[in-house]
């Protein structure tokens, strides 16, 4: 880092850092400041989330009323909804792009990109990321990926429509269906940019956490948010490159006529020349990324909720070390479970058994985390802020969605449940809703840190309750469709006798989805209104211990004027017996909290222990410390 720029004239005396002029472009567009990049990721993520939600409402309308015409659809979608009815090809494109945007653009980039960027330098005590330039590049690659993905809605043949997992041959044979043509090519280009973006981001996060922590911030004093972002970034670094390998082979198959994934394909009366490849190999490469990917989605949300729950329960997080070890356990296990997506591909039953065991073992660290959340809430002095409600909502979804994971992880049960709505219900609860709730908890909690203003709490409560109830109303009934064998991705339930009885349920689910979508208006209004007109935030609105709340509210490049604060203690000293306030920030040394120090605070430092003992002898306890 050669220069650190300040745009704040009050900080002239600032130690070793020079000035350089900030223009509109360098401040808001090509910014290299991690806080601004975080906001860029967040706002782009929110826009993509709104788009993906809109797509889901479109296909929900089709599922609920397959026989009715909606003229407004034709107005918006033109020939893709001729006569006001969504065409089957476009229906497939809708579910594909909905999944792609939600998994990658919202819950990977929008979630990690926002909160890793915002919180890593602020919570470990660094001036910025290891490489601010790569960080900027990471955002702009992500932005380009978004634009290219959306541009596929403006081409003749429409977007990719082979599902977000883009299994060959649909994704490889360009003539297979309209979405296999240019739309699929755009999907692949967008994805390559996206992977480049998340690698640049992830590499930066890991390097920053390992190399740039402030004085006193050893690994075991890091907040759980940082642990979660750290392990998430490692997951990304180790798994995304495998997707790149798979995508490169796919591009060769599509564009040059190789046969990595193709063999024995007949289209109509044409026999394709490709021989010897295997589509199963794509599934292996894809799910080697794809399974860690779902933990890339959920782990930052888990980290955020750990922090939010502890702050708002005014209690130390229960089992801090167990929380970290369970995150590490999830990280390691996530690499050896990908086969559970492929139980029905003709896998050797013995191998299926192995994948089943590793999959079920993931329930252990997940349960550790769940019980630790509940134990943290137990007898806490809970403050039900909107962020806290969303964090508790995450725990709820994580439990109810996680339980069905145990069903699906079972190789024999999966034969029945594979590719049914049971799977849809499972992952929309455990990684979809849970991760979105974690993200929203983060937005409500750190909004004051990002924009210097508070969000409206009443609108927050409205947003929470409507979304929470609607999410359960949408996804819970889908379990029963799945148990009845209703397959996912089917265009209309009217064509199959056994599916007809579920039509009324689909109508119900669609109304619930519309309610959930409308609830987001409360959030969007609250978010954008509060950026400009919200109540000005105090320095530390949630009375939190972590480092980001010690930095000045007005943003300055380099985060702290003068020295970066030193850290003396872990971040979870809430309601510590013997201390007058119910929180002790990490920057408060033990010498200022003699009345509340405990023997294990000194980590075996005998001199400090002696000083403490002497102080305790000189100041005998007269009242009940409680």
């Amino acid at each position: 880092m050669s220069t650190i720029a300040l745009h704040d004239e009050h900080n002239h005396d600032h130690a070793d850092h020079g000035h350089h002029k900030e223009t509109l472009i360098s401040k808001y567009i090509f910014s290299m400041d991690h806080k601004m990049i975080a906001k860029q990721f967040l706002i782009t993520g929110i826009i993509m989330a709104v788009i993906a939600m809109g797509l889901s409402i479109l296909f929900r309308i089709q599922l609920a009323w397959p026989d009715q015409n909606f003229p407004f659809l034709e107005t918006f979608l033109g020939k893709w909804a001729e006569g006001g009815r969504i065409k089957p090809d476009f229906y497939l494109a809708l579910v594909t792009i909905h999944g792609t945007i939600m998994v990658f653009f919202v819950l990977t980039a929008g979630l990690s990109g926002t909160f890793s960027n915002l919180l890593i330098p602020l919570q470990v005590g660094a001036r910025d990321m290891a490489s601010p330039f790569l960080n900027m590049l990471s955002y702009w690659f992500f932005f380009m990926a978004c634009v290219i993905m959306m541009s596929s809605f403006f081409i003749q043949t429409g977007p990719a429509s082979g599902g977000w997992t883009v299994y060959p041959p649909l994704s490889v044979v360009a003539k297979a269906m309209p979405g296999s043509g240019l739309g699929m090519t755009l999907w692949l280009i967008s994805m390559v940019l996206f992977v480049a973006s998340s690698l640049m981001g992830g590499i930066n996060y890991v390097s920053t956490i390992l190399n740039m922590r402030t004085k006193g911030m050893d690994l075991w004093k890091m907040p759980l948010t940082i642990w979660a972002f750290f392990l998430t970034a490692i997951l990304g670094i180790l798994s995304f490159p495998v997707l790149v390998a798979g995508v490169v082979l796919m591009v060769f198959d599509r564009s040059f006529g190789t046969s990595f994934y193709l063999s024995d394909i007949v289209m109509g009366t044409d026999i394709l020349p490709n021989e010897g490849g295997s589509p199963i190999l794509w599934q292996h490469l894809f799910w080697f990324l794809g399974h860690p990917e779902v933990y890339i989605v959920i782990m930052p949300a888990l980290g955020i909720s750990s922090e939010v729950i502890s702050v708002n329960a005014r209690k130390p997080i229960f089992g801090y070390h167990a929380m970290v070890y369970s995150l590490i356990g999830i990280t390691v296990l996530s690499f050896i479970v990908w086969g559970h997506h492929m139980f029905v591909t003709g896998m050797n039953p013995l191998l299926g058994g192995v994948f089943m065991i590793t999959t079920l073992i993931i329930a252990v660290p997940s349960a550790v985390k769940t019980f630790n959340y509940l134990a943290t809430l137990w007898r806490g002095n809970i403050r039900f802020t909107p962020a806290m409600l969303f964090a508790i909502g995450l725990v709820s979804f994580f439990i109810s969605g996680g339980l069905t994971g145990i069903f699906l992880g079972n190789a024999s049960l999966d034969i029945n449940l594979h590719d049914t709505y049971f799977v849809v219900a499972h992952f929309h609860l455990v990684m979809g809703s849970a991760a979105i709730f974690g993200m929203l908890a983060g937005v409500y909690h750190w909004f004051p840190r990002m924009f210097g203003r508070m969000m409206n709490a009443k609108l927050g409560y409205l947003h929470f309750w409507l979304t929470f109830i609607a999410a359960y109303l949408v996804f819970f009934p889908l379990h029963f469709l799945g148990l009845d064998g209703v397959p996912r991705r089917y265009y209309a339930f009217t064509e199959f006798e056994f599916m007809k009885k579920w039509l009324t349920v689909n109508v119900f689910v669609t109304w619930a989805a519309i309610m959930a979508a409308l609830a987001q208006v409360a959030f969007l209004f609250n978010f954008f209104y509060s950026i400009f007109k919200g109540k000005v935030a105090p320095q530390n609105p949630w009375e939190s211990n972590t480092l980001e709340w010690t930095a000045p509210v007005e943003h300055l490049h380099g985060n702290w004027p003068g020295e970066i604060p030193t850290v003396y203690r872990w971040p979870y000293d809430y309601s510590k017996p013997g201390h007058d306030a119910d929180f002790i920030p990490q920057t408060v040394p033990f010498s200022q909290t003699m009345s509340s120090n405990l023997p294990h605070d000194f980590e075996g430092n005998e001199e400090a222990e002696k000083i403490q003992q002497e102080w305790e002898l000189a100041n005998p306890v007269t009242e009940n410390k409680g």
Partner: protein
Amino acid sequence: MQDTFDPKPRKFIVWLFVVSSTIMFGGFTSYYLVFAASKGKGHGLVLPDAFIYSSLVIVASSITLVLASRALKKLNFSLQRNMLWITVILAVAFGVMQFNAWGSMVRTGATLVGNNAAISFIYVVSGMHLLHIIAGVGLIISALAGSYKSLPVAKVQYRMEIASIFWHFIDILWIYLYVFLLLNR
């Protein structure tokens, strides 16, 4: 060393890139292993001699790069630049030989597009590796430019170290790929 220039976190970034690149080639080679195991056959070729020569050339380029680093430690800038130039020339020679190797494979009928994905695979991995070589040449040229522009020594050393980490990595990577292809015919 200046007070404000800390190369450590950025060098770490290069190492992390090396890790992710290794994983990508791990993905490629595991594709090959699974493919070959399920078909009961690999590419079945006698690899072109040009691959042997290119392997020797890339090892030589690593040696000249080490010599450049040593020269820089002794602050012998002219020797450093000469060694870097030789490395660049060897890198270009490596690229030419790879194209030669592909040419001779095409002449024997083992083309990129065909019904043996294992043969296509040789083109894909050597091509992806060649992209890394291009990036590596970029880093060496940035080290050269740093040396010519007479930047502070710490920065010249930083650029040199980054180029070295990456270049030795792609050297070892090529040896790995070559041996892998030899052993898994």
